[in-house]
């Protein structure tokens, strides 16, 4: 491609504006995160007195220290890890097998199931809180992590299924047929040939579901009342008291909460990039 012509000056302008735009976007996207970090290290006494500054004159770790040692935050954090982790794994496993069958088999009622799954994605979640509470309460699943996991899994399976299906669609079915002729059952062929090739898809699905469950607030707030089963987004609200908002501690908790999500994406990014670009090329 030779959009910019041949002169070095035009090339400079072309690439200069290219990077300028990317830079502007990155700044725009990351600024709130920067602010989160900045406030989290700002000592309480100068938070309001210094006015709007890009970086405080003094920094401190005391917000982090407080959050980690004096608050319930570590407990919320652990709850969130359990809920988001389990939801991601269970959802992805279910989505993998469902997506595979959608991709490979023609069966009676397939279109109905697909339609139903699409319909579930159309309702605002708020509408469903009351009925779900009514269903879970007698089962003893309100105020419990298990209940949250079930609800999150149910809500994420449809999208995750379609996501996985699109990845399976990209893998020729000749491959598992060859494996079946080579001596595999269909399930073995799925596990030993198809699944390894779908790892990028699995990673993308895991990442997507994990983030969704990690930051979910509505159900976590409505279905759980006790401290012991609260997840971290709910826990964040505990920094808001009747009379004040403890921004420093809240932000410190926020920064800490980013760590597992970042770690998770770091772990899967190799597959993720592969998967996203593969999808991009195929169009």
């Amino acid at each position, binding site marked *: 491609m030779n959009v910019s012509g041949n002169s070095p000056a035009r090339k400079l302008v072309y690439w200069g504006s290219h990077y300028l735009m990317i830079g502007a976007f990155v700044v725009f996207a990351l600024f709130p995160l920067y602010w989160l970090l900045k406030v989290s290290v700002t000592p309480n006494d100068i938070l309001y007195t210094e006015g709007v500054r890009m970086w405080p004159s003094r920094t401190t770790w005391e917000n982090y220290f407080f959050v980690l040692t004096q608050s319930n935050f570590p407990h919320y954090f652990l709850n969130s890890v359990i809920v988001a982790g389990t939801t991601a794994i269970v959802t992805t496993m279910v989505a993998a097998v469902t997506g595979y069958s959608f991709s490979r088999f023609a069966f009676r009622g397939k279109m109905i199931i697909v339609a139903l799954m699409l319909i579930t994605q159309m309702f605002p979640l708020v509408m469903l809180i009351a009925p779900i509470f009514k269903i879970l309460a007698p089962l003893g699943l309100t105020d419990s992590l298990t209940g949250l996991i079930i609800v999150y899994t149910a809500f994420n399976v449809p999208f995750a299924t379609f996501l996985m299906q699109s990845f399976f669609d990209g893998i*020729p079915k000749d491959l598992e047929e*060859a494996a079946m*002729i080579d001596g595999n059952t269909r399930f073995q062929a799925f596990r030993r040939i198809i699944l390894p090739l779908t790892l990028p898809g699995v990673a993308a699905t895991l990442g997507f579901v994990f983030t969704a469950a990690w930051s979910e607030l509505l159900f976590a707030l409505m279905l759980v009342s006790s401290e012991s089963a609260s997840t971290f987004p709910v826990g964040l609200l505990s920094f808001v008291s009747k009379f004040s908002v403890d921004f420093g501690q809240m932000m410190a908790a926020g920064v800490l909460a980013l760590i597992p999500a970042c770690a998770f994406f770091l772990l899967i990014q190799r597959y993720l990039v592969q998967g996203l670009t593969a999808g991009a090329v195929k169009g």
Partner: protein
Amino acid sequence: MASIEISNAVKSYGAVDVLHGIDLDIQDGEFIVLVGPSGCGKSTLLRMIAGLEDITSGAISIGGTVVNELQPKDRDIAMVFQSYALYPHMSVAENMSYALTLRKTAKEKIADAITNVAEILGLTALLERRPKALSGGQRQRVAMGRAIVRKPQAFLFDEPLSNLDARLREQMRTEIRKLHRRLGATSVYVTHDQIEAMTMADRIVAMHDGIIQQVGSPVEIYDRPANIFVASFIGSPAMNFLKGAYEIAQNDTTGIRLTDGSFVPVLPARGATANQTVTLGARPEHIALVPDGNGGIPARVELIEPMGLSTLVHVSLAGNPVKIFTLDRPDFAVDSFIHIAFDMEKVHVFDTQTELRLPPESEPHMARTA
């Protein structure tokens, strides 16, 4: 190695019948080529033998055992796919040894088998590579190797050469034939390319619209096609067809009166009646150019196609395009009139209605049709 018997096999997708009662006996060690235009059901039949498609009705047996209900893995057959279907996350060696590993073959035995097959196919230097680092021809070889190492009851090929360029295809054709001679394994080979069918087959199975049209050796199929479909599908350049009426003249000579009134003598055709509407079938090499015009039928030259060894002369006869194959170098011009003559012993008479060939009365009863 084993024989394969297919009896009255039917395949339907919902209300659509794709295969209508296929009967076929494949001998132990035979190289069978299923040939026919795209969509005629060749792959479906092959996949039914492999166990990748259910059999709607009828039976398929391999080595005397009915396999209708057996999973592909229990049929002990190997298949080479058009796409090669190599496992992308495995090396060439792993691809080829996969089936043996699943059968829990001893490690040393697997290593021996791989070394041996890699040598036969010239893959020794590539064993550690991933499929994506191979050329099309090399991938094709790996796919062959993966089938061969297993020493299966039968080999199934689904258009294995159609993704290769012409030269490589020609080379692989001979190689597959040589391999077959060496291994002697029962093989079913699917192709839409009639040249592959002619050059490779012990017996050709010509298919059309889910029905077997004819089964026979390449020469049988070429020289005595059962019907117009087989006659037109096999052979390149294709056979010429001219409509006309069957005539029995006073002196008992028989022939076909073409629509422009010209008369083409033919051998008496079995079952043909006077004035019956028939189709004359003549291969390009069975029409001669008559230089002095003596006794020939006049035809206008439309195109002269030099092919190196030979020349293909396109003429127009009774409003029909006719191709003539000649080893001479023609010296006439386009649009000039020439005279041509049909080789009476070699041309075919087809019933226009049923499209079946009406063999000469002198030919022994043997044409096997579906």
